[in-house]
C-alpha cells in the first residue's frame, strides 16, 4: 500500500511538471507562432524556388515568415484540411471551379476586407477580377498566367527543309498541309504526351477547348463549362471529331496512341529537338518554355524553338485566346495575411514569376522588361492585348466533371472508335454533377 501511494505521488509530481511545461509552451506560441503564414500550393521545383525568392523581401521587411507547403494532390489536400477545420492561411487553389465551391461554402475570406481595392483595380484588368468574383464578391486573385493553345516548333527543321514556318494567321487547313509535307519527309506531324499522374489527360482537354473555342465561339464555350451544354450535342462532338483528325490517326502523331498516353506532358516536346528531329509541332501552353530549356539547356528561344498561335478554324473566332492562371484564395483574415496578400498581388511580387518562370503576370503594371526573353515578352504582349480571353474550360468545370473529362481524353486516345460511349459517359456525369 505504501508503494502504491508513493507511485501516485510520483505520478502527480510528473503531471505537475508536464503541466508547467505546457504553460510555458503556450506563451511561446502567442508571441512567435502567429507570425508564420502557412501557404499551400501545388508548386514544386523551380516554381517553389521562385516563390521563396519572391517572399524573401517581404519576410525581411515585415519579420513575418511564409511557409510554402507543396503537394501534387492539391484538390484532395485542400478538401481534407478545410473539412477538418484546419485550412491553410492562404492557398493557391486547384482552379476556378474549386474557388467557386469554397466561396459558396463560406470557407474563403472576402478579399475586399483584405486587399487595398483601389490599388487592385489599378493593377488588374476587369477580366481577371470578374473571374475571381463569386456572387458579387471578390474571392480569388489570379496570378502566374499562361497562354494556352500555342503551337511550338523547331525553326531549324523548317530551315533545313526550305519551308517557311507557319504565321499567326494560319488556318487548320494550312496546318493539315504542313502535316502532309512532314509525313512525306518521314516526320510525325505532332508530338503529343498526356500523362500527368492523377491529372492524366488534361493536355487533351486543352486541345479540345482551343478547338471548341475556334469552332463554336466564346458564348457556347461559356455554356459548355457552366454545364449547360450536353456533351452529346453537335457542338461538343464536332470539337472531338476535329481533334480526331490528329489524335485518331496514328500517322499524325509521333509514337502512336500508346506513346501519347504513356508520355509525360513535360517530356512530350522531346521529338522536336532530337537529332534528327522526329516531329514537327507540339501544342502546349506558354509555360512549356521552361521545360524545354530545362531539358535542352543549349536551345535558344526564337532561334531554336518558337511558337505561333493555334490555327484558326472559323475565321469569326480567329482572335480568341485561351489563358490559364493560378488562383489564390485566403482562408484566414489576420493582419499578417492581409500584409502578405497585398504584397502577393503587387507588381513587385508578380515580377518574380515573370522573371523566374516565364509565367505571364496578370498584374498589368509588371513591366515587360522583367520577362527573360523575346518569346515570353511576345506571349505577355499577346495576353495584355487580347480581346477575347477565355479561361481554361476544364478548370472552370466542377471537379468531378473535370476529372471525368481528363479520363475521357485518355480513353479517346486509346480507342477513338468509342467516341459515342465516351461522350454518353461524360453526359451522364454532367447530368449528375449539375442537377
Amino acid at each position, binding site marked *: 500500500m505504501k508503494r*502504491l501511494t508513493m*507511485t*501516485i505521488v510520483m*505520478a502527480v509530481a*510528473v*503531471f505537475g511538471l*508536464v503541466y508547467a*511545461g*505546457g504553460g510555458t*509552451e503556450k506563451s*511561446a*506560441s502567442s508571441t*512567435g*507562432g502567429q507570425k*508564420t503564414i*502557412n501557404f499551400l500550393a501545388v508548386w514544386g521545383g523551380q516554381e517553389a524556388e521562385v516563390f521563396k525568392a519572391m517572399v524573401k523581401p517581404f519576410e525581411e521587411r515585415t519579420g513575418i515568415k511564409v511557409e510554402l507547403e507543396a503537394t501534387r494532390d492539391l*484538390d*484532395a489536400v485542400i*478538401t*481534407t484540411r478545410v473539412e477538418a477545420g484546419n485550412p491553410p492561411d492562404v492557398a493557391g487553389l486547384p482552379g476556378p471551379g474549386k474557388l467557386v*465551391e469554397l466561396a459558396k461554402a463560406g470557407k474563403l475570406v472576402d478579399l475586399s476586407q483584405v486587399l487595398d481595392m483601389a490599388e487592385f483595380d489599378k493593377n488588374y484588368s476587369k477580366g481577371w477580377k470578374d473571374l475571381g468574383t463569386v456572387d458579387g464578391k471578390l474571392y480569388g486573385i489570379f496570378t502566374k498566367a499562361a497562354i494556352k493553345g500555342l503551337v511550338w516548333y523547331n525553326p531549324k527543321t523548317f530551315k533545313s527543309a526550305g519551308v517557311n514556318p507557319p504565321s499567326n494567321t494560319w488556318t487548320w487547313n494550312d496546318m493539315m498541309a504542313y502535316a502532309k509535307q512532314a509525313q512525306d519527309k518521314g516526320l510525325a506531324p505532332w508530338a503529343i504526351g498526356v500523362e500527368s*499522374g*492523377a491529372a*492524366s*489527360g488534361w493536355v487533351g482537354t486543352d486541345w479540345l477547348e482551343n478547338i471548341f473555342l475556334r469552332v463554336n465561339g466564346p458564348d457556347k464555350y461559356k455554356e459548355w463549362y457552366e454545364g449547360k451544354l450536353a456533351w452529346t450535342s453537335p457542338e461538343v462532338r464536332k470539337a472531338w471529331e476535329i481533334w480526331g483528325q490528329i489524335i485518331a490517326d496514328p500517322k499524325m502523331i*509521333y*509514337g*502512336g496512341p*500508346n*506513346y501519347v*498516353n*504513356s508520355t509525360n506532358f513535360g517530356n512530350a516536346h522531346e521529338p522536336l529537338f532530337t537529332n534528327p528531329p522526329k516531329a514537327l509541332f507540339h501544342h502546349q501552353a506558354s509555360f512549356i518554355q521552361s521545360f524545354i530549356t530545362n531539358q535542352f539547356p543549349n536551345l535558344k528561344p526564337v532561334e531554336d524553338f518558337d511558337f505561333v498561335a493555334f490555327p484558326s478554324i472559323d475565321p469569326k473566332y480567329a482572335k480568341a485566346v485561351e489563358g490559364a492562371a493560378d488562383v489564390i484564395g485566403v482562408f484566414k483574415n489576420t493582419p499578417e495575411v492581409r500584409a502578405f496578400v497585398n504584397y502577393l498581388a503587387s507588381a513587385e511580387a508578380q515580377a518574380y514569376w515573370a522573371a523566374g518562370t516565364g509565367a505571364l503576370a496578370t498584374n498589368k503594371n509588371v513591366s515587360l522588361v522583367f520577362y527573360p526573353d523575346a518569346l515570353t515578352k511576345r506571349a505577355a504582349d499577346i495576353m495584355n492585348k487580347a480581346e477575347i480571353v477565355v479561361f481554361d474550360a476544364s478548370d472552370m468545370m466542377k*471537379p*468531378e466533371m473535370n*476529372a471525368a473529362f481528363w*479520363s475521357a481524353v*485518355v*480513353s479517346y486516345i*486509346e480507342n477513338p472508335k468509342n467516341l459515342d460511349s465516351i461522350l454518353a*459517359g461524360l453526359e451522364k456525369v454532367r447530368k449528375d*454533377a449539375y442537377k
Partner: protein
Amino acid sequence: MHSNYFLIAVLAIAIIPLIIWAYLLVAELLVSRTPQKVSRNLRPWLWLLPSLSLLFVFLVYPALNTVYLSFLDAKSTNFVGLANYLYIFTDSNMLIVLRNNVLWLVLFTLFCLFFGLLIALLADRVRYESVAKAFVFLPMAISFVAAGVIWKFMYEYRPAGSPQIGTVNAFFTAVNPSFEPKAWLFDRSTNNVALIIVGIWMWTGFAMVILSAGLKGISEDLLEAARIDGAGEFTIFFKIILPLLLPTITVVATTLIINVLKVFDIVYVMTNGNLGTEVIANRMYKEMFNYRNYGRASAIATLLLLAIIPVMIMNIKRFNAEGSHE
C-alpha cells in the same frame, strides 16, 4: 508554430501512458476497497475500459456514422435511401471497379500463395536458404508508392525502333528483336495484370515467410517415415505437407485477401484508375476528396467493410480454434 507541434507530440507520447497508468492505479485502488464479489466482476471491465473507449471513439463510432452517411445524399443533408448502393451496382464505371477488385482478389491471392509456397519449399532444400528468402522478402520493405514508381519505370514504353528505356520492354526486345514493345500500363489487355504483378511482387515475400515457418513446424520424422514407406516427393507434398500446412495457408490467404481489398497506392501512382484499372479504394478516394460526394464515398466504404467482415470472422474462428487446441 511547428516546434510547438513537436513539443505537443512529445508531451502526448509522455502523457498518455502516464494517464493510463494513473487511471489503472486509481481504479485498482478503488476496486480493492469493494467487497470481493463486486471487485471480481468489476475488475476486468475497469481494465478493459481504456481500450474499449478508444476502440469505440476511433473505430465503432466512425464505422456506424459511415453506414449512416451512406444513406444520405452528397452533402449529407437529405435521406436518399438505397440510391448510393444502387449507383454502385448499376453505374457502368462502378461495375468495372467491382470487376477489377474481383480480378485482384483472385489473381493476387492465388499467385502470392503459389509463389510463396513454391519458394518456401524450394528454399527449404538449399544451403543459401536465408539469402534467397531475404531477396524475395525485400520488396515488403518498400512502400507501395515507391514500388509503383519503380515499376512505372520498368513498364516505360517507347515506340518500336527507338531505344527501350523500360526494363520490361528492353528485356523482351533484346530476347526477341521482332517483339513489338507494349505500353503495359496503357493497353487495356495488359494494364490490370501489370498492376497486379506489382502487388504480387511485393507480397509474395510475406506469404513465403509465414509458409516457410509453417513448413519448419512439420516434423522431419513424419516425412522420413513416409519416405521409408516408399512415398514419392509429390505424394509427400500433396498427402502430408499440404494438409498439415492448410491452417497456415488459410491464415496467409485471409491476410492477403484483407490487404488486396484495400489496394490503393499501386493503382493511384501508376494509372490513377484510367483505362479501366480503377479499384474500390481509388473510387472511394475520388468520390470523397475530389467530388465531395460523401453519400457515395460512404456507401463504397460500407461495401468494402461488408466484404471484409466474413474474412475477419473466418480469421477469428481460426484463432479461437487454435487456442482451444492447447
